[in-house]
């Protein structure tokens, strides 16, 4: 039995297939050491964040799409950064405005921007480096 996880990876995309496949991929990469939570919009992600906080679960990494109904990815990550600067932010998008990506790097301390379709290696690298950068990698 592994230790009961208290760290989470949160990912946001309006496409259900992306959420499902991404979660499986992460789960296979990192096993049960993290809690994996999915949200289909920025608003929903905020709810999940609040829920996790009340359960004393710390979100380490947030992976977000850019082109979503409602708040766009860059805007969302900037808001997240303002409230939770320690969360490592990764963008995963099929198409993004270059200006928006630059803004996310600058104002949301974006760790990495991955484009769809992404490779498992790139994803793993982005997550691992992100965890290292935050000094938060779990043993």
């Amino acid at each position, binding site marked *: *039995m*592994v230790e*009961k*996880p208290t760290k989470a990876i949160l990912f946001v995309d*309006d*496409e*259900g*297939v*992306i*959420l*499902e*496949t*991404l*979660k*499986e*991929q992460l*789960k*296979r990469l990192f096993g*049960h050491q993290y*809690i*994996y*939570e*999915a*949200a*289909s919009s920025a608003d*929903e992600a905020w709810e*999940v964040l609040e*829920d996790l906080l009340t359960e004393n679960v710390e979100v380490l990494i947030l992976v977000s799409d850019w*082109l*979503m*109904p*409602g708040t766009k990815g860059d805007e969302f990550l900037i808001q997240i950064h303002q409230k939770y600067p320690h969360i490592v932010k990764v963008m*995963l*998008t*099929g*198409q993004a405005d270059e200006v928006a990506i630059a803004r996310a790097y600058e104002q949301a301390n974006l760790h990495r921007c991955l*484009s*769809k*379709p*992404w*490779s*498992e290696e790139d994803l793993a690298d982005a997550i691992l480096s992100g965890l290292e950068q935050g000094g938060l990698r779990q043993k």
Partner: protein
Amino acid sequence: MRSPSARLSFQTLPLRFLLMVPLILQIILQLGWFAELKRYPSYWLSLISLAIAALVGSLTVLRVSGLALHRVEEATQAAFENSMFENALDGMFQTSLEGNYLRVNSALAKMYGYSSPEALIADQPNAANHLYTEGDRRSEFVTLMQQQGAVSNFESQIYRQNGDILWISETAWVVRDQVGQPVYFEGTVKDITAAKYIEADRQRIEQERQQVEAELSAQQAFLRKVIDAVPSAIFVKDQQGKFLVVNQAGAAMYGNTVEETLGLRDVDFNPHHEEIKDFLDSNQQVMATRQPLSFSAQPMTNAKGEVHWYKTVISPFIDDNEQVQGIIGSATNVTELKQVEEALRLSEAKNRAMLSAIPDVMGHLRGDGTHISYVISKHSTHDLLPSGYNVVGKSIFETLPLDLAQQRMEAIQRTLETGELQSYEQIVQMGDRLQYEEVRIVVSGDDEVLVIIRDISDRKQAELALQASEAKNRAILSAVPDLMMRVSAEGYYLDYVRSDQITDLMPTDYTPLGRSIFEVMPPDAAQQRLHYIQQTLATGMPQVYEQEIHVGDRLQYEEVRIVVSGENEVLVMVRDVSDRKRAERALVQKNHELAEALQQLQSAQQGLIQAEKLAALGQLVAGIAHEINTPLGAIRAASSNTAKALEESLQQLPKLFQVLSADQQARFFALVDRILHSNIQATAREKRQWKRSLTEQLEGHGIADARTVADTLVDVGIYDQTEPFLPLLQDANADFILQLAYNLARLQGNSQNITIAVERAAKVVFALKNYARYDHSGQKTLAQLTDGLETILTLYQNPIKQGIEVTRCYDALPPMLCYPDELNQVWTNLIHNAIQAMEGKGQLTIGTRQALQAGRNFAIVTIADTGCGIPPEVLPRIFEPFFTTKLAGEGNGLGLDISRKIIDRHSGHIAIESQPGCTVFEVWLPIE
């Protein structure tokens, strides 16, 4: 000498006796005789007889005895008289008839300043002559004595011996002898000096009193006159209101005289109780308070029943003892004043009404530009100031724009300097229009002007219009390009008007009047002209022909119009149409060029349509990339996941049969079976909820790390009814069992995801292919309009899903012959515009229906959005090529132009209704 008294006593003696009779009778009666006699009346007669006898007897006795007595008397009489004479207090004298003193007494001598009567008599000649201060007084006295025989109280002033002056009163009489001859004068002198002085004093006092009285009465009369002369009523009333004093004006208030008024009260004259009550009240108040009261106008009805108005002042009438005795009042008839005031008020109201009917704004201003008054007519619409704004006391610099104020100030000063009316016009901005105003300024007083402002906008506009009209007429006249002439039926010039716009054949100083056209024109031209003149007169219809004239080295084209202008005469107008001719030729040339250009343009149009389509596509590419990359990402991840799941499960399967009992195996396969048939599509939110409830359930069953287990179960599609699988989950190999189930489930899940993703990508690619297709055959093909609409909606899925709700209202349409790819371009434009108008948020409603119009069956596609709408001023232009309201790069302004051309190619039409929040495009396409 005999004294007068002796004679008198003698003469009166019988009378005395008679007087004694009653005395005697009384004595008799008192002796008691009378009583007896009363008892015996018969004795009365004898007694009276006796008495008469006694009386007669006694008279006789007396007469006898009287004569005897007379001698005795004379002796004693003389002694007595001497004593009386000497001792009398008054002066006494006896003079001769000539006036010489015979005898004077001591009193007289003393009176006259002499030591003794003898001294006076001795000084007689002197005394006689110098006695009286007035020289003729003595002779007067003597004359009186001689004439009348007596003088009584003859008063004179005399000199005493020592020269003092005395007033004396002389009484003298003549003493006559037995036969009546005057013997001497005898008299008394009284010193009346003291009495005279007293009398004089008294008279003086009386005189003074009379004088004072006269003066007083004069003063009173004067005062009365004054009071009466006062035009105001003056009156004094006592406490009961009775008139004590009233002047004529006061009495006249009731139409009475002063005498008729005095002692009466107001109520005696005035039957109007209200008025009287007011008078009484005010009188009482004045008496009670001792304070004056005044009334500016009190009504009072006179005897004729006319009401007059009085300005009244009443004061308390206080006597010397400080007691209020009544009131003093004055009243001035102000009826006329009141009438005048009323008239004035009416007049003023009338004036004001008149003023306010004048559509001018008027104001009095001081020389420094300060308003003294300001009249705004209710008819004046041209006031700059807000209504109710009080300008009095304000300067024009506060109420006017600076430039107008300065102009006004200069005019005011000029008016005051010259004393002459100044007027000028000004233009005022009134809201969104210009108002023309005429300002007139006249002197209205010392350092004061009247400013009258009139709105002359109408006049001004009329003037301007007139000017414009005149200018236009002049322009028209001067622009008439024709040479005009009146010509007779025979071809003689009757009148000739040149124009500066046609080159005349004749020199300018040549006058053709009276000459024939044949003298002036070339023969063939003249012949032609005459022909048309006659034609005109014959038909009565205007004739027009053209001619070519050589002017100098150039050919002038002329148009000649001929109309009947009178009996046997025509008006000929000749116009130089050389320019028009040249233009016509140029036009023909241009038309040719245009036709060629049109041909080129038509061939270019197809290319343009294609280019516009590609331009629209370019804008879509970004969204489309996302639409394709997203399923690709899912496919790639799913493929990688599948590989891992397969690899793991292949390793795990052999172990399955080793570690699980037969029962557990059965449970496991039941689990796998359930997983493979679950096929649940759920949102992330739903999955989280299931996970949460499942975690609680599992915790209830004592499962360790329930959260992770629940997460995996939800991942494989199981979120309830976990009881059959609890033994597996509670098993020591639970992790292994769950992971194997997960791997098996994910094989299926990833496969499904790949299928979904591929369909998504294929759909986009299909739409792209449909969109980009260009049918070069030029032949219409059968197609469903909704297919094309769905294609475009697919392409726009990305922007749409970011905030646009799409409603489809598709009525069934038969497949129709059309150019589907071209129509796709129309739908693209309309949907693209709709999305942009809504700025990515709103409702997009796509509808199809059929309708009959003008006997034709139409398919109608409706595309409605809730965006900002098209402004009315823009609406007519939206189909113009290159017209765009979009930012650079967002559109090329050809979309709607090309859309309409495409719809035209389908013999359809497009209709638009737009207002903010609802814009509807309807594309009507005939169903053939």
